[in-house]
């Protein structure tokens, strides 16, 4: 997650205190890995240093002092730039699976049980996510959908790999100079 952009997006709605920002980041973007207060305040400090947010007020009621932050015009520009710029695709898991398949072929082993085990593990996780989606609030349900579609993409790639495994084996096992 890009914490700076999450904070800018929340501040674009309205000025907020650091505590509220942390709570909202957890709720919308990081239900599984809540961000630390320190990370939120450190990020706000860096954004302030770059002129993208400004401290609007320091309030002190009964507890510790509360700083209220607001987004600046530079912050709005940065947020808008980030929103329209495509993200780098993140093929981490697929790359790991690909490495595993190639290593299995190099070892002269049958790919099928490896692929079946990966499929089973993926489907187990997809069952959990499907249950999460059934009962969760909409932002979490959408996050579950996001993960489900990514896992499904991995499985489709696995099925294609199984279908082409003979071709893949010939390519992987060919001498290096002809590969």
């Amino acid at each position, binding site marked *: *997650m*890009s914490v700076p952009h999450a904070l800018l997006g929340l501040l674009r709605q309205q000025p907020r205190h650091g505590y509220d920002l942390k709570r909202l980041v957890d709720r919308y*973007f*990081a*239900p*599984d*890995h809540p961000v630390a207060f320190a990370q939120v305040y450190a990020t706000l400090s860096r954004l302030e240093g770059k002129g993208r947010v400004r401290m609007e007020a320091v309030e002190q009621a009964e507890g510790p002092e509360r700083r209220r932050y607001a987004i600046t015009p530079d912050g709005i520009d940065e947020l808008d730039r980030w929103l329209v710029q495509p*993200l780098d695709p*993140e093929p*981490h*898991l697929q790359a790991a699976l690909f490495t595993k398949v190639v290593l299995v072929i190099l070892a002269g082993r049958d790919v*099928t049980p490896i692929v*079946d*085990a990966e*499929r*089973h593990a*993926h*489907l187990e996780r*997809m*069952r*959990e*996510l*499907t*249950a*999460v989606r*059934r*009962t969760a609030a909409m932002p*979490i349900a959408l*996050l*579950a959908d*996001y*993960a*489900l*579609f*990514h*896992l*499904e993409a991995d*499985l*489709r790639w696995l*099925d294609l790999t*199984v*279908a082409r495994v003979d071709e893949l084996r010939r390519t992987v096992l060919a001498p290096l100079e002809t590969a």
Partner: protein
Amino acid sequence: MTTLAVLPTPSIPAIGAPDGRPILAASDLHKRFGTTEALRGIDFAIARGEIVAVMGASGSGKSTLLHCLAGILRPDHGTVTFDGGRIDNLDEGRRSRLRRSAFGFVFQFGQLVPELSALENVSLPLLLDGVRRGDAEDRAAAWFPRLGLDGLEGRRPGDMSGGQAQRVAVARALVTDPAVIFADEPTGSLDSLAGEQVMELLTGAASDAGVSVVIVTHEPRVAAYAHREVVVRDGRASGPGAA
């Protein structure tokens, strides 16, 4: 942003847990079409209330397995037992009666009678089984609100969306209180949202009623509604879910 998020594991089960007793089982099934061997000694079992996804590539034999389990096809070799009794050796008439009374079916498309209203379509299996029209329509009508179909009773299939028509098909599969529902690519012609609604309603209603469901699908998100998956490859069962 979180991608493959490690979201918390839910504290409630996705669907009702099966009770473990087999309602339908197949042993060493073989089926050949001409020179093509579609099934090569496949075993299968499903418990009461269990939902099993049958996955596999096109031509793997998964639909042939479903047809043999449902008594639509007779295997060349092997046995199919339902509720403790063999059904693979029944004649076509008895298998047909069994399909009407004990099984429900949901296919990808083309399963509703276009000239009949949604209510008449759902009533049809009951009418074929000899239930009086008034009783059949009362029982059929009870399924409409449960499947989000309120107000669509008089509509014909051609005047409904794909998702609505598929939910009518789900109602028709459930109206006879079957023991097993067979669903062959039930969301294959639907967009993601409509497919999700159909799967939620199909598995939810089946689970509430204790009905077992065999879902043939190549879509992992559909298979994720099942308790486990069986992968069919070259006419044989494969993978950890087949155990």
